[in-house]
């Protein structure tokens, strides 16, 4: 508990210091609870998520960083490795490939990489997984783009 708190506090300070270092990621710690974080990540360019801003929710266990944080999408996203309803993410580093050397920041980077390179063989969203596996890239992209526009693009005015 003490160790996780100390480490999260250091991550917090690092995030404050590096604020402009990674323009694609914005990590925000909950005002009253250092075990709850949210992040805003930009959809990677040249993907159907380009132009969108996606919100992630982090729930951090007391054994952190020995155990991985729980992360899910709050913003709706059409992606083979993200559960469409719950936002749950299938990513090995959030499960058995976790290492305490990962940070919240590097987890966000890994999630951005997953958005750019879906793994259709371990789908949480079967519709989009099937589209990709059957080779219907266009179909997948247009669905993903549509949901990006609907849910992740900031409304103007």
């Amino acid at each position, binding site marked *: 508990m003490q*160790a996780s708190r*100390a*480490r999260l506090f*250091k*991550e917090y300070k*690092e995030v404050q210091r590096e604020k402009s270092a990674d323009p694609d990621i914005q990590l925000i710690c909950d005002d009253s609870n250092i075990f709850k974080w949210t992040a805003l990540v930009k959809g990677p360019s040249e993907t159907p998520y380009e132009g969108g801003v996606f919100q992630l929710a982090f729930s951090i266990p007391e*054994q952190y*960083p*020995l*155990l991985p944080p729980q992360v899910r999408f709050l913003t709706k996203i059409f992606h083979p490795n993200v559960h469409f309803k719950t936002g749950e993410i299938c990513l090995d*580093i959030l499960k058995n*490939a976790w*290492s*305490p*050397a*990962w940070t919240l920041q590097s987890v966000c980077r890994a999630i951005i990489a997953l958005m750019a390179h879906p793994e259709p063989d371990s789908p949480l969203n079967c519709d989009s997984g099937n589209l990709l596996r059957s080779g219907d890239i266009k179909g997948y992209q247009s669905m993903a783009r549509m949901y990006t526009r609907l849910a992740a693009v900031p409304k103007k005015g």
Partner: protein
Amino acid sequence: MDAMASSDSEEYYDTDDDDMSQLDDGSDDGEDYDSSQEADDEACPKPEEREKEYDFETEADVRQRQEEDTAKISELLSVPRGFAAVLLRHCRWDAERLENEWFCDERRVREAVGLTAESGAPTALSDRPLACAICFDLYGPGETISAGCSHYYCRECWAGYVGAAVGDGARCLLLRCPDPGCAAPVARELVEQVAGDEVRARYERFVVRSYVEEGRSKCIRWCPGPGCTLAVQSRPGFRLYEVACACKHAFCFRCGDEAHRPASCETVREWAAKNLSDRETSNWVLVNTKHCPECRRAIEKNQGCNHMTCGDPCRHEFCWICLGPWKDHSGGYYNCNRYPQDRADESSEEKTRREQAKASLERYLHYYQRWSAHGASLKKARQELDGLEKGGLDRLAEEIGGGEVVNSTELEFLKEAYAQIITARRVLRWTYAYVYYLDPEHDRLRCFCEYLQGEAEASVERLHRCAEQERSELEAFVSTAEAAAEKLEEYREKLCSLILVSRNHFTNLVEGFESGMPEVS
């Protein structure tokens, strides 16, 4: 061939270490016992001495061998001990294979386990001040440590990292440097430097378990008995089937399941799957209360023997399994185990699928019921034997003739009886799975199997009844010490001869079944 086909009752006695030795020799049990020993030997001859098929090894023995292997490899390949263990584990503890692969293509082997050339040592201390990459705290020179690679962490973070992996199970043997891009293995030297006593002990345990469990050698296995830490090493030249561990757990050396001769491992697997899929139907049949076939009184079975006697005034004697009169269950008339073939023929003549399904279910239930009834009796017998060992014999010795007639060591033959009952029930139990999978068309073979089974079954029922019921009569017998001694002697002779008969039956039975009975098939 002889050694493996003989009944496992012999193996039961072959575990002559510690607790079983009292069955074999009473050398230090006092004079009384010595004088009775001869009579005992006459009535219950021991199975002939046979060469031992296996040896027991403790965890410490196994660890020592593992250490020796590791030290040899460490010297031969000039790598630290911990790396030698990582390499050996990678090759399933097969030193020869490791040597070959290493001298063939050292780089490939190194890469497979993450031993890059830079890492000469399993641990390294940083020589400059560094921030630990897990807790981000700053440390001075020599205060952070790595797995021989360039990723340094403080001791506390290492301890947490290793502790979490060890808590997760045997995967701690595959642990790598926490840096996501680094494959350097966490070897034993590092674990020893950073982990506390408890974690280290658990880690060591996984290492030694791995030597047997992941080892390529088919000659050694851990005993799967609850709480048992012994390993069984088969001696060269034996194809080992069944092991009676010193902890009393009897198991199959090949599949690790409970002992199941004469059924094969495959039969056991199929049978277990079948029971699982048909569980509901079979349960329904088994939970139905049974009634005395004479007077319809509800009967509860609370003894292990299947020979039931209804209460007064009925006194009808019948068989718990088939509900037939017990008089049809002795000697050559014993046919409780026989599946009434005409029943199956009749319904298979009816062409409807439903009736065929019914016939096949009935056939299955016939065998399942018997398999499961012997299992229940087996459990009872185990409890009895347990009770006898935990003071039951002493109580009995005090009971008989007011405690003046025998001491408990002279009653050891009762334990032998239960040991034989346990073996016999277990063998019989598995003959039902065996016969179930015989070709139903092959009548001659099935009949012959059933004949052997019937003989053996009658003998174990007699033995079980004598050990159980007639013993209680002995307990209840109140008379002069002299009369009690006489009655006890009579009882001993009877029980011992039944043990002998049962042993013979079961030797023949297992031999016959395992040979596949070429004379009839």
